[in-house]
């Protein structure tokens, strides 16, 4: 009996440590002036390292882009491109030459000045050193040249609508020629924050950059605290361990934060398409009919209601509603199990569903499994540790039948044009549409991208379960929270706390 006591104690201790994860640190010290000096933000999926040039995943740019690294341009809250390190830019009439005029007096956190050489270095480095799949977005760049210390000319092989937009994402982040030796641990950027401390497995603290060129951010210190467990994160906010939940992971629990005198909830949309990916190169999903059957077999409304408490939006293809060329494609494959069985022709299949061990994926997978079972597809759910193991097995090796992941990158429809991407979707027609969209006028771009989204949906290249909501809960008095999370970063520069 004594050993049982020990077991219970051990279990209790584990839970207690999980629940107390939010204690200590953070909490927001308030200086004598009455203005808060620090703010802590709860987040999930801690980055494996701090180098988003070589490591996939959303957690690194979420923490570092805009805050530590800046690009020549950025996305504002409306999704428009706004100047950042470039004061202005000119586009030639043939839309192949971009001339950026750089801001003066910008220095890196290492003390090195930011010059045209760094821009050339950073853009060349995307091609030479970056390991991310999305780097193909900058394939249109032919060359980057320094005209003088504060002027850079980028020449494109062809007109590209996506170029300037990509420059506002992590691909456009500016690195120092002398600051890339240890990107995984020591980020060097021009941003309003610098890395304060990184306690692996716990938190990442960013401190205000004393030599920042622009307006000082209101918060001298912001800490990202990472939680594996949704309930632990909730408890941390309830008990004051953190000030903000950057992305609610247990939407059913929102009523805990219903008291408007204590908490504020922000709900908007994101770029995150929660995709049920199907390996287009592996039986049975190399057969379009089987993929179409899967799309018909899933009751998306029921899935969203049960798996994510009805928060979010149904989309039906790879375009989020915040993009100008969004079209509602949820009608392409209405919930119709009979039709699905007909498409399967009475055959039954057994497949594996390798998912990241994240709440939205584990919840959705159980619904998907139950609904697929109705039409004769037995899916074995296999949760993999995220990010490392999932990235390795599913994303890199494409060793899977089905998976579920939230694709958070903005305007990322292009990933389907890459045959080697883990969807293994291969339709030259789609690639042509994207190329023509990139080269065309604004109207042609919108038309082509609508066509492309339609083609993806009709081909059933994947199934789009729902659009991940931007669901933020914060203590009363925290301001500057973004309604729509349409950029890759969690922008700390506007955050303030009374």
């Amino acid at each position: 009996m004594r050993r049982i006591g020990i077991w219970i104690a051990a279990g209790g201790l584990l839970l207690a440590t999980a629940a107390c994860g939010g204690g200590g640190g953070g909490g927001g010290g308030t200086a004598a002036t009455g203005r808060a000096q620090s703010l802590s933000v709860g987040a999930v999926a801690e980055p494996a390292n701090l180098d988003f040039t070589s490591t996939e995943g959303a957690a690194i740019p979420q923490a570092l882009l805009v805050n530590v690294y800046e690009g020549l341009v950025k996305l504002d809250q409306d999704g428009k491109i706004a100047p950042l390190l470039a004061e202005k830019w000119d586009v030639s009439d043939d839309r192949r030459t971009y001339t950026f005029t750089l801001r003066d007096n910008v220095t890196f956190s290492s003390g090195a000045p930011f010059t045209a050489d760094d821009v050339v270095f950073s853009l060349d480095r995307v091609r030479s050193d970056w390991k991310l799949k999305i780097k193909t977005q900058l394939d249109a760049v032919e060359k980057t040249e320094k005209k003088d210390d504060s002027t850079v000319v980028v020449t494109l092989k062809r007109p590209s609508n996506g170029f300037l937009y990509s420059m506002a994402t992590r691909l456009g982040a500016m690195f120092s020629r002398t600051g890339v030796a240890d990107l995984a641990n020591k980020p060097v950027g021009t941003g309003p924050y610098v890395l304060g401390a990184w306690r692996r497995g716990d938190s990442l603290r960013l401190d205000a950059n004393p030599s920042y060129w622009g307006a000082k951010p209101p918060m001298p210190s912001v800490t990202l605290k990472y939680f594996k467990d949704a309930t632990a994160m909730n408890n941390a906010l309830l008990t004051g361990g953190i000030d903000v939940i950057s992305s609610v992971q247990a939407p059913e629990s929102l009523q805990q934060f219903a008291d408007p005198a204590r908490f504020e909830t922000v709900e908007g949309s994101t770029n995150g398409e929660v995709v049920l990916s199907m390996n287009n190169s592996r039986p049975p999903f190399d057969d379009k009919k089987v993929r179409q059957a899967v799309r018909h077999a899933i009751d998306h409304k029921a899935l969203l209601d049960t798996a994510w408490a009805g928060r979010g939006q149904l989309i039906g293809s790879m375009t989020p509603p915040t993009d100008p060329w969004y079209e509602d494609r949820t009608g392409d494959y209405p919930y119709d199990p009979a039709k699905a069985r007909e498409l399967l022709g009475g055959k039954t299949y057994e497949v594996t569903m390798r998912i990241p061990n994240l709440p939205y994926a584990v919840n959705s997978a159980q619904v998907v499994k139950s609904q697929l079972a109705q039409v004769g597809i037995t899916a074995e759910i296999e949760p993999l540790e995220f990010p490392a193991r999932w990235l390795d097995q599913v994303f890199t090796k494409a060793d899977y039948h089905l998976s579920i992941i939230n694709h958070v990158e903005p305007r990322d429809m292009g990933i389907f044009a890459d045959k080697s991407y883990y969807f293994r979707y291969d339709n030259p027609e789609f690639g042509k549409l994207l190329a023509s969209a990139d080269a065309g006028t604004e109207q042609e771009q919108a038309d082509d991208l609508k066509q492309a989204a339609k083609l993806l949906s009709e081909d059933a290249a994947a199934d789009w379960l729902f659009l991940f909501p931007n669901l933020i809960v914060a203590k009363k008095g925290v301001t500057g929270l973004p309604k729509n999370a349409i950029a890759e970063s969690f922008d700390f520069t506007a955050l303030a706390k009374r």
Partner: protein
Amino acid sequence: MKGGQVKGGRTRGGRLNAGLLAGGTLVGLVVLAALVSFFWTPHDPTLVDAAGKLREPGGGYPLGADKFGRDTFSQLMVGARTTLYVGVVAVGIAALAGVPLGVVAGMTPRGWLSELIMRVNDLVFAFPALLLAVMLGAVYGPGTLTAMIAIGVATVPAFARVARAATLQVMVTDYVLAARAAGRGRPAIAVRHVLPNIGSVLIVQASVSFAIAILAEAALSFLGFGTRPPTPSWGRMLQESQELLFSTPRLALWPGIAVAVAVLGFNLLGDGLRDYLDPKLRRIRAEG
């Protein structure tokens, strides 16, 4: 063994006692639920039904439904199966490995082999089972099998120690001395005399280990390293009900009670069996 102490005369002659009855009943309930679940559950425990989300108890759903609209009662029944499955396999691994090791160590008390076995046992004993399971889960992926193996391996030393202690006692009895004098080999003595006489102790150990294994499986599933979704498991039911703890506490209540019932049942059963079997053991010794 501390020998068959007879408490208040209740257990004399190996009659059934209250602990044994209560433990047997609780364990019987769990076993019954598990067995019945093979043939019948009120509803499909993994069937998602959006319309029945967080259904209140009643109307064919005696304990209501969870956020996926899955029937809690059916999940508990199938969860019992998972629990027993893990317990049987984990305890089986532990007993199959631990008992021979303990008997060998007990029969060669001063040999190097005994030392080696018991020191390695101490090493494994010092390693927390949960940690081992989390480690295996991280390497081989979470799953019922991984959890069972980890729990089983971590329980081996408990069996080895108990088996060795009991074997040491049996080895100095007159009948073993007689058998040795008659030229019986060690394997024969082990099978003919040692195993039958330490059996009752091992049964008690098994029931206690079973309780520990149930708790461990629940803890592992709670942490996401145990049974894979959507196979019902009490631990994962607890974990999934966490976010609804404030709005729908019954979802956490029922699997919590189930774990408590099973653990209590096996512990009472172990205590009861000890009381039940000890006097018999003494009688056998006296007669032997």
